[in-house]
């Protein structure tokens, strides 16, 4: 005891740190958040690789590497601290998101252009993370879609579809595959040892947009029967269908989305109201004019809706901060998506709707504010 008192240590002023309160902080960081998002995308990536094979993995790897590379290059040119910029892992998230938005057959140079579009035009030009008004991955996707419309709308069939065609002798059993793969392509596939790189596969929404929809057909109930039925929707939900490598499997995206919700990384209102709005609008149209658009379940499980609602629209930087703002934002996304899908020239509208609503976020933030604790309605204290 006496020894202890002799060794009494007092702090020396030059060792002391002064800083503002609070003096304790949560053990979380931007990079931790980004890595959790990456973890939540693993199911979607796995599904992509499962359905589209090793080429999907290549696209994911290429996009990630190119995006991080583009960020490093920007930092070198702009004389910014490289490590401080890439440490937050946001470029990695953008890279993977971009890959999930591309076809598994995308050539490497498209990935490269996409990465630069995303990181340079989508993010760094506005001042880096936190300042970008648009989701960088979507900027790249839409940029590529406009610049290379042919390449960006060419999809490959899943491995399972290929097997389906090869193993099924009877044409009636391979209903689903036959709806999306032309007869010529099916023949190529059926020839066992043929190269199937050139084979393309339509997406469900693509088929919908090319289905004739003149006024006589408005009320024909079975206009979409071939592609919109219970069995088909189950395949879409699992992801056994052509499309972007990350958007096809609603199941995997749902798992990832639930992970994000559990980790409290996204506001539940955005996916719920986004998907809900699409469901309600397409449901109403489908109910009154079944010949115009397929059932709402078809709309939810096909295309990029799940990917968009859980991973793109919920991007923290480009979505509103208040709960009321998130609802307005999500409903806006849902309306535009439905409108494009039902009446637009493009088969898919998720990317455009999110980009459009991204542009409105400053206004949503301005008008969807919350009332200060104890604020009186009439006399607002300054």
């Amino acid at each position, binding site marked *: 005891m006496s020894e*202890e008192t002799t*060794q*009494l*240590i*007092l*702090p020396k*002023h030059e*060792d*002391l*740190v*002064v*800083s*503002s*309160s*609070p*003096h*304790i*902080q*949560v*053990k*979380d*960081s*931007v990079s*931790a*958040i980004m890595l959790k998002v990456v973890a939540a995308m693993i199911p979607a990536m796995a599904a992509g690789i499962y359905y589209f094979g090793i080429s999907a993995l290549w696209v994911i790897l290429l996009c990630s590497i190119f995006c991080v590379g583009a960020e490093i290059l920007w930092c070198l040119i702009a004389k910014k601290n490289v490590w*401080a910029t890439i440490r*937050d892992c946001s470029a990695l998230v953008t890279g993977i998101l971009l890959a999930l938005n591309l076809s598994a057959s995308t050539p490497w140079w498209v990935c490269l252009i996409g990465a630069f579009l995303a990181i340079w035009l989508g993010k760094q030009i506005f*001042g*880096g*993370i*936190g*300042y970008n008004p648009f989701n960088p991955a979507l900027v790249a996707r839409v940029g590529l879609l406009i610049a290379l419309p042919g390449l960006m709308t060419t999809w490959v069939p899943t491995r399972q579809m290929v097997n389906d065609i090869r193993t099924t002798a009877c044409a009636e059993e391979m209903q689903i595959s036959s709806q999306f793969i032309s007869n010529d392509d099916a023949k190529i596939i059926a020839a066992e040892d043929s190269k199937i790189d050139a084979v393309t596969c339509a997406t469900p929404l693509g088929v919908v947009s090319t289905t004739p929809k003149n006024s006589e057909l408005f009320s024909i109930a079975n206009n979409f029967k071939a592609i919109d039925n219970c069995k088909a929707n189950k395949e879409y939900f699992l992801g056994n269908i052509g499309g972007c490598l990350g958007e096809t499997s609603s199941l995997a995206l749902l798992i990832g989305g639930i992970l994000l919700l559990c980790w409290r*990384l996204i*506001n539940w209102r955005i996916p719920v109201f986004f998907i809900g709005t699409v469901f309600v609008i397409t449901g109403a149209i489908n109910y009154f004019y079944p010949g115009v658009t397929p059932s709402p379940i078809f709309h939810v499980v096909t295309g990029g809706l799940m990917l968009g609602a859980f991973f793109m629209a919920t991007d*923290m*930087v*480009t*979505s509103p*901060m*208040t709960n009321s703002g998130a609802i307005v934002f999500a409903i806006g996304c849902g309306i535009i998506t439905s409108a494009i899908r039902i009446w637009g020239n493009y088969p898919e509208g998720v990317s455009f709707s999110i980009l459009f609503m991204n542009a409105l976020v400053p206004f949503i*933030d301005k008008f969807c*504010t*919350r*009332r*200060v*604790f*104890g*604020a*009186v309605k009439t006399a607002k*204290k*300054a």
Partner: protein
Amino acid sequence: MSDKNYTTGTFSGGIHPDYDGKDLSCNSVIRIAPLYEKYEVALQQNIGKAPKLIVAVGDEVKKGQKIAEADGFVSVPLHSPTSGVVEAITQIPGPMGVPVNAVVIKSDMKDEWGELPEVLDWRETDAATLKARIADAGIVGMGGAAFPSAVKLSPPPEKKITALVINGAECEPYLTADHRLMLEAPERVLTGAAIMGKILGVENIYIGVELNKRDAIDMLLAHAEKYNIKIVGLKVQYPQGAEKQLIYAVTDRKVPAGGLPMDAGVVVQNTATCAAVADAVIEGKPLIDRVTTITGEAVKNPSNWRLKIGTPIREAIKLAGGTTDDVRKVILGGPMMGFAQKSLDVTIQKNSSGILIFPEKKITQYQSSACIRCGRCLQGCPMKLNPALLGRLIENEKFDLALKNNVMDCMECGSCAFICPAHRPLVQHMRRAKAEIRNMKK
């Protein structure tokens, strides 16, 4: 566990740290600090006007003797913490980093009480006398703000007070001073509350205690019936003890933004203040000491002490066995709202509820990055402000816009900066903006 014969409440928003550090000192019985040879009593320890000195260098003073008297309505007198001689009237480092005027009292090591006012039986005494006694004892809000208690107990007649809320939440992590006080001296706390209830003439007296202090709740429940005081268990959520949040949690009333608790018909007092009131009335003792928690990972023996006002924190740290050798931060107050100190010559004041000492590993280096608009600060802000927006505005020195976005309603509780994954120094921004706006208004 006792039967649940108390109600519970909470507010919306706020944060909860994974580790609240209360286990370090919550089992340490309050000890009385030994006499120290020199006390440096800061002259102004209350919000409002500084008291007027009534002693001169060389004067002999007794323990509890008035050394400065209230100067105006919002002001409190100051008493000598011990017997001795006024050695100097000088400047010492203040808790905010700015030098403050102080009376240095050299102790004669006898610690003799001076003449104390008569003991009162509070049930028999009228409200005005009781209030005068509280004012005379120099009692201020001991939770943090140091607002003169007697002034709080004198609401203007047009504000009808219908409830008194005693703040036993002690929501600040690490601090256990109020917890120990409620556990060891529940009668004093309750008596003080009852006295103040009598002064205000209110029927409803509540004590709000966070549910992590079940032993204190049980202790209070055992005695509360006598005084007709209701106990309210509060969810463990910071800042449960902030005035407006506490009122909402306990009485379900909302204090209007920019208003005072009395606008909602409520007066809030701290538990330590209650104990001081009980001492002043029942024993006639003025406020010359207080319970302070000396804690933190860098303290050898985290403990609770009854320290005399004017004890330098250097001596207080010695009482707790000194520090480990990797000490990096000394904070007066709690970890969420306390002030980092640069000098150990700062002395204990009436509102110093804790001395917190952190080692290297607890220091958060602000490597703040850009806001990623995750919105967690919005969820955390108990005042429902938009700290992310305010931070951006203030960084660009747009103080007028910050004012429009209600920055003045910020109480600097620190929830936003605590929870920010980008580690943005939001509280410092808010403080800057509030200071600039106050300057502009002048």
